[in-house]
């Protein structure tokens, strides 16, 4: 053994110790220790580790290096289709360890008893340094320390290739280096395991120079795709526990109804079914799925609810928001971009724009409705099997609901239908109901929402509107810009089954909520037009529509959805900037270039101009037409900075004035994330996001009357089909000098809407300022 001493070794702030010699096997387990003052959440006392958690104070397991030189990695984030944990995470760890991609043989993600860090499954690349990158960098340094002793050479004389360290003509693999020993590397971590962010690895271990990358930048395949395609994957929908029964929930008649009486079960037809009532939650369980569905329908028929009419209805929504909503209780937020004195410039300008932009409520609309299995054991242990973006936060929510500690809750994670942010605060919909029903019947219960439940009882992305005042000067530049964003909060993480059952939950979003449960409307869209001398950006918040009026505190519950808040703020800004360019008589791409100082923004604008075949000229086009049955064509552009990535998008569209139909014919995107980790995966993410964005721009709007959501299927809430997709082009700009990885799976969905609306103005000469751009609305705009 080379390591003769038990003296801890300092590794850039982390601590390497040898706990013991072991006779066989051996493993380098990279653990974490808590620093700072943030305690674990819930009933767990500070510094006491919850049972059924990986112990963050003791060496545990972010990364295991095995004697055969293979590696296992663990992450609390899990896959929603981005593939990041199976591709980019493997590449990042392999790179920092100087190992081949294939050496990372196992990825453990999500399960609350088998992963260390928690947090929502978003921002996977952590602004360039996700937890696993730092952990891998610490681990690499520890391995070099071990090798230095073993090979009798200074650290800086060591060379590493494919997990083998060499010096002085001698070599040793990582596996051999740790064989026979159990070594602990303790690294600093802080945060809250069960909140939306989870734990973060601290410190600044040296990272591999980008110039030495060999694994990052290559298009490795996502391993889970093969197992899904070959029908070998265990999806959440496939979970089948011994003794499990099937459950369906009879949700209330309206978003404010209380239960008068639950329907009686027809025991002749459904002899093995059972009705469970807890507060306003009515559930039906049965041994088979088909019986559960039919029995729930029969019980629903006989269930009586109070009536409630507390919503404005979608036809009066904007009027309600403008005139009746309370924007005064929530403090107004301002952005850091605010500067100068907008008022006098606007007052004296002769080329100015004053406009309001509106964006609808929309559904996350997963292709499969939410589904979970709850299993409350006689000994008080609670297991939840689900597809969820934040299993540790769900664990906390279930513990709170049951009045127990997180020690007694384990959340198991499986692949499922993506739901684009809906559960990043811990619940997708069915989990708490499955637990409540399981507790009631003493068996595992599988609760599957039907399509109508998912349309009408899930959260949605909130409505928003923005007032813009701007002016352009005689040199064709932005002289003054003022925007006021208005939006209800979008992070209601209360499990709805718990709310209905009258069980404890976190509070609904409120004025005095914390950073995530507050009604405050923060400015989330990075300002990119620094040339403008006078700028004001303000965010105004209010309460969720109907929630306070609802006797069951439900109403329209909102939740973040892909590119949350920034989409709602970037759409009005970018459309207004295109209108400003038209006002100035300057080409819309050139206008953006003229008004920004950011090199990377200019880079994506030029790249998308080239890729899209953009014809440089002011909008509207000289022969713009707003009548007739002949399609008229136009093009528009949009720009965004999100999570360290610069995006530009051009859409070419055809509008048929007589029908109001808009067809997106071409869509080009330029993306500069800094370092491109995996070109193939990023391209697929961008393409998918762009399609979702076109769907949102043209089709998606939640409709509701005074009582609840009136859509219950894919006919009443249509999404884009293959018939209506454009030709798509994605330009990835690998920009290694940035030195970090920007995010790739969000943002793409937000770019199409402002580009399409600007293209509409280009084609027709008419400004269109509300989403979605459905034919009837388009026709109305063209008649003005």
């Amino acid at each position: 053994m080379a390591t003769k001493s038990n003296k801890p070794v300092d590794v850039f702030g982390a601590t390497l110790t040898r706990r013991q010699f072991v006779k066989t096997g051996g493993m380098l387990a990279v653990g974490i220790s808590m620093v700072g003052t943030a305690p674990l959440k819930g009933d767990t006392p500070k510094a006491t580790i919850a049972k059924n958690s990986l112990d963050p104070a003791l060496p545990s397991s972010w990364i295991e290096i095995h004697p055969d030189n293979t590696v296992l990695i663990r992450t609390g984030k899990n896959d929603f289709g981005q593939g990041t944990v199976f591709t980019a995470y493997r590449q990042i760890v392999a790179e920092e360890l100087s190992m081949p991609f294939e050496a990372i043989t196992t990825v453990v993600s999500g399960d609350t008893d088998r992963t260390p860090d928690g947090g929502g499954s978003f921002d996977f690349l952590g602004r360039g340094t996700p937890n696993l990158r730092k952990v891998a960098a610490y681990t690499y340094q520890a391995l070099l320390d071990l090798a230095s002793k073993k090979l009798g050479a200074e650290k800086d004389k060591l060379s590493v290739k494919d997990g083998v360290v060499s010096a002085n003509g001698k070599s040793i693999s990582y596996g051999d280096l740790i064989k026979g020993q159990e070594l602990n590397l303790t690294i600093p971590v802080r945060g809250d395991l069960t909140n939306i962010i989870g734990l973060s690895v601290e410190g600044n271990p040296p990272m591999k120079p980008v110039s030495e990358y060999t694994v990052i930048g290559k298009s490795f395949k996502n391993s889970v795709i093969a197992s899904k395609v070959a029908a070998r994957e265990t999806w959440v929908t496939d979970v089948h526990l011994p003794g499990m029964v099937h459950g369906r929930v009879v949700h209330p008649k309206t978003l404010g109804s209380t239960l008068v009486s639950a329907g009686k079960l027809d025991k002749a037809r459904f002899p093995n079914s059972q009705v469970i009532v807890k507060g306003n939650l009515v559930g039906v369980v049965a041994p088979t799925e088909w019986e559960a569905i039919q029995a729930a329908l029969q019980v629903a028929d006989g269930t009586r609810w109070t009536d409630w009419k507390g919503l404005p209805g979608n036809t009066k929504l904007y009027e309600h928001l403008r005139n009746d909503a309370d924007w005064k209780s929530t403090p107004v937020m301002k952005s850091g971009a605010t500067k100068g004195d907008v008022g006098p410039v606007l007052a004296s300008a002769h080329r100015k724009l004053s406009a309001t932009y509106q964006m609808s409520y929309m559904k996350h609309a997963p292709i499969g409705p939410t589904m979970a299995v709850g299993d409350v054991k006689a000994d008080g242990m609670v297991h939840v099997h689900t597809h969820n973006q934040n299993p540790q936060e769900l664990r906390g929510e279930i513990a709170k609901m049951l009045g127990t500690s997180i020690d007694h809750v384990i959340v198991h994670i499986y692949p499922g239908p993506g739901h684009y942010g809906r559960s990043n605060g811990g619940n997708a919909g069915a989990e708490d109901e499955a637990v409540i029903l399981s507790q009631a019947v003493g068996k595992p219960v599988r609760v599957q929402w039907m399509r109508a439940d998912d349309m009408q009882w899930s959260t949605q992305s909130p409505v928003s509107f923005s007032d813009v005042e701007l002016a352009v000067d005689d040199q064709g530049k932005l002289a003054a810009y003022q925007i006021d964003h208005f939006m209800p909060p979008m992070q209601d993480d209360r499990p709805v089954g718990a709310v209905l059952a009258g069980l404890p939950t976190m509070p609904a979003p409120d004025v005095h909520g914390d950073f995530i449960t507050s009604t405050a409307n923060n400015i989330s869209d990075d300002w990119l037009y620094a040339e403008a001398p006078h700028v004001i950006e303000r965010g105004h918040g209010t309460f969720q529509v109907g929630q306070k009026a609802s006797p069951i505190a439900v109403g329209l519950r909102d939740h973040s959805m892909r590119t949350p808040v920034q989409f709602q703020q970037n759409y009005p800004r970018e459309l207004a900037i295109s209108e400003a360019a038209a006002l100035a008589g300057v080409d819309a791409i050139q206008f953006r270039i003229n008004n920004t100082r950011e090199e990377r923004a200019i880079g994506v604008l030029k790249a998308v101009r080239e890729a899209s075949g953009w014809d440089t000229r002011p909008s509207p086009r000289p022969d713009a037409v707003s009548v007739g049955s002949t399609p008229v064509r136009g093009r528009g552009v949009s720009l965004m900075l999100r999570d360290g990535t610069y995006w530009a998008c051009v859409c070419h569209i055809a509008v048929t004035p007589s029908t109001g139909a808009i067809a997106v014919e071409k869509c080009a995107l330029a993306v500069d994330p800094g370092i491109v980790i995996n070109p193939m995966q990023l391209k697929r993410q961008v393409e998918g996001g762009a399609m979702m964005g076109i769907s949102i721009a043209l089709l998606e709007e939640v409709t509701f009357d005074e009582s609840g959501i009136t859509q219950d299927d894919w006919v009443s809430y249509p999404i884009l089909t293959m018939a209506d997709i454009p030709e798509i082009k994605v330009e990835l700009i690998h920009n290694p000098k940035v030195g970090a990885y920007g995010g790739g799976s969000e943002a793409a969905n937000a770019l199409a809407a402002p580009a399409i609306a600007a293209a509409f103005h280009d084609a027709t000469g008419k400004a269109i300022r509300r989403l979605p751009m459905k034919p009837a609305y388009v026709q109305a705009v063209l008649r003005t």
Partner: protein
Amino acid sequence: MATITVNGARREVQAPGDTPLLYVLRNDLQLTGPQFGCGLAQCGACSVLIDGKEVRSCLTALSDVAPNQEITTLEGLPARWAKHKGLSAEEAKSTLHPVQQAWIEEQTPQCGFCQNGMMIKATELLESNPNPTLKQIKEAYTTSGVSPNLCRCGTYTAIIEAVQRAATLMAKGR
């Protein structure tokens, strides 16, 4: 009690005749390739082939399927291809259907929940039209069935590229 033929094997099932085929496949026969998406034949996540035609299993009653009709699920695609190509049982075990192979090579799925139906639809299309045009692919996924096949993640471009690759793979006989 009913008898059906699934992936080449005759299976006895106890479920009542009005049970949608989807639940019989998933819960009684553990064939979990088809997924529950809407229960309304509006999305295609639950698709299977019945005698080579794409059918929504969520709205197909067990009693509507005759014992001699051939049901093929995602799990049965490799054997369907092996039979078509006359591969040995041993070869068949290590073979994926070219459609599945193309879906992997093109890295088509995002969340993948709809892709069962997308691959079933591709198989139906390519068995009758080995070299479809872009227009024909779009028609297959939007107007040929009882509803369009829906993908919320927006993988339509990747699906088209995978169908085209599958056509090439099938032409080569792999």
